[in-house]
């Protein structure tokens, strides 16, 4: 029998737990040349801001051992062009759409989410309160529990469909932020965003990013992400989307075992653009081998010493 891959988060049913991570698949057009997007549980768009953003000057990515640093700086087309140019194409894709929203002020978050409220195809919003690469906003909202709660509560007033709060690992206690997000009315948590890091060229003594620091992603951060998902799952009732260095079905299974209900594949898409397809095949084989009828049978089942 084919195992059931369906997962339900905050009342929304996804065909499987595999999503793309924000900033790793643009608005989906390029990836659709590689595989049909209906294979995905959901596509998470690049962060949308009120105004279009060019992002930081290059260089804005650097390779690190088993990982990468990026300081793109939220380059995006802005919410107006997103609604006018990107949504009509996304509407033709048979997958769930989670629109990632970033802002530099409370007003900006609320304004963008209010505009998306009228856009039926935005099945969920993921609130980026954790971007490490912009000078104002973003991470300020995600590192202060009162601000986390406030921004989520205000957005909930204008957007009635489920809201995902994307949490940063760059805090002392991520559980405190998770609880603040829950208090504010978040329906789902996604974690982790990238970890602040940097890299220096020892010949020129120059940092490798014009932003001087960036967000570390890729396999290098997977163990950290797993521990943080475990911590949040153990202390918070909201469903979790696990993110951080996921490249294979084995990675997905680890995240599900520590309590994630779904996952996002990010940096791995840069290396293997069809990684989600391979992951789904291998995940199905694994469930069959373990004689599990549903992928949800794995969630939170980690055995601890």
């Amino acid at each position, binding site marked *: 029998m084919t195992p059931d891959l369906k997962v339900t988060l905050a009342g929304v049913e996804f065909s499987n737990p595999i999503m793309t991570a924000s*900033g*790793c*698949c*643009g608005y989906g057009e*390029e*990836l659709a*040349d*590689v*595989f049909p997007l209906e294979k995905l549980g959901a596509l998470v768009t690049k962060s949308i801001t009120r105004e279009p953003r*060019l*992002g930081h*000057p*290059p*260089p*804005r*990515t*650097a*390779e*690190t*051992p*088993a*990982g*990468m640093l*990026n300081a*793109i700086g939220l*380059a995006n087309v802005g919410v107006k062009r997103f609604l006018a140019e990107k949504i009509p194409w996304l509407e033709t894709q048979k997958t769930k759409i989670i629109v990632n929203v970033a802002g530099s002020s409370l007003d900006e978050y609320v304004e963008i989410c209010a505009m998306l409220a009228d856009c039926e195809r935005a099945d969920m919003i993921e609130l980026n309160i954790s971007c490490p690469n912009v000078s104002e906003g973003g991470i300020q909202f995600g590192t202060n529990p009162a601000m986390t709660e406030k921004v989520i509560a205000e957005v909930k007033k204008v957007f009635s469909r489920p809201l995902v709060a994307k949490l940063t690992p760059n805090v002392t206690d991520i559980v405190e932020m998770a609880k603040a997000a829950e208090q504010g009315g978040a329906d789902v948590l996604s974690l982790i965003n990238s970890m602040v890091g940097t890299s220096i060229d020892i010949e020129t003594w120059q940092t490798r990013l014009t932003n001087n620091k960036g967000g570390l992603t*890729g*396999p290098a951060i997977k163990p950290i992400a797993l521990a943080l998902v475990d911590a949040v799952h153990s202390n918070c009732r909201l469903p979790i989307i696990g993110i951080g260095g996921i490249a294979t079905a084995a990675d997905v299974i680890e995240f599900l075992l520590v309590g994630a209900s779904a996952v996002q594949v990010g*940096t791995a*898409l*840069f*290396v*293997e*653009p*069809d990684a989600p397809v391979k992951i789904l095949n291998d995940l199905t084989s694994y469930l069959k081998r373990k004689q599990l009828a549903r992928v949800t049978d794995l969630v939170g089942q980690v055995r601890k010493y």
Partner: protein
Amino acid sequence: MKKLATTTVSVTARRDLRNDYYSLTFGPYPRVTKCRPGQFVHIRLPETDILFRRAMSIASVDTDRREIEIIFKVVGRGTTVLSRYRKGDQVDLLGPLGNTFSLPKKSERALLLGGGVGYPPLLYMATHMVRSGFDPKSIEFFYGGRSDRDILDRTRIKKLGVNFHPVTEDGSFGQKGLITHAVESFIQGQKKDRMRIFACGPEPMLKAVDDLGLREGINGELSLEAPMPCGIGVCLGCVVPLKQGGHARVCADGPVFAIGEVIL
């Protein structure tokens, strides 16, 4: 056939060229007929902690044998790993990616400028033009390097029948000086509106070529190099600023840009 896909191919030939340069030929590559001059393949380096693929310009294609060739110099960890591949080893390619050099008019004189590691796409361009029926004598092939040891594949270039202009900084082979100086003296007194430049090489060279083209009113195209995490336009890591404002992705909007288009 999907627009984009990864393909596993084998190394069918490996040539150890001089001065840390290597040539690798891969096949059978079902997408060989889709390849055009200026495009690149993105090569995975598995079983290492090297995360990103490596973008390599296509240096030649053989549609009968379904093979493609890359030529590269060992400059870092990625190229070191690549240089260790041997005949029969399997390699995972994503491609062909990027846009292409555009063919000039048959009435135009093509100035092909390859500087050092930027030589391979010009070899492909020259070969493609000759195969497409261009008169080899309408092609001026400038090849610049630091010294004699940097100028590869001389017999191969000469066999194409193109006008070959090797240039070395130390004068140990061909003309002495910089490639752009050699081009500048070549164009003196010639009809510049009937010329078209195609160039690939280090950034200072491309900047000089861009300046030369704008100053002398010669149209043309530059192929840029940039570290590319994804190669397919999604990560926005390899952008270059445009003169008209905004950024372009070297991988998906390029790597070939018109002279005067990019801020170098």
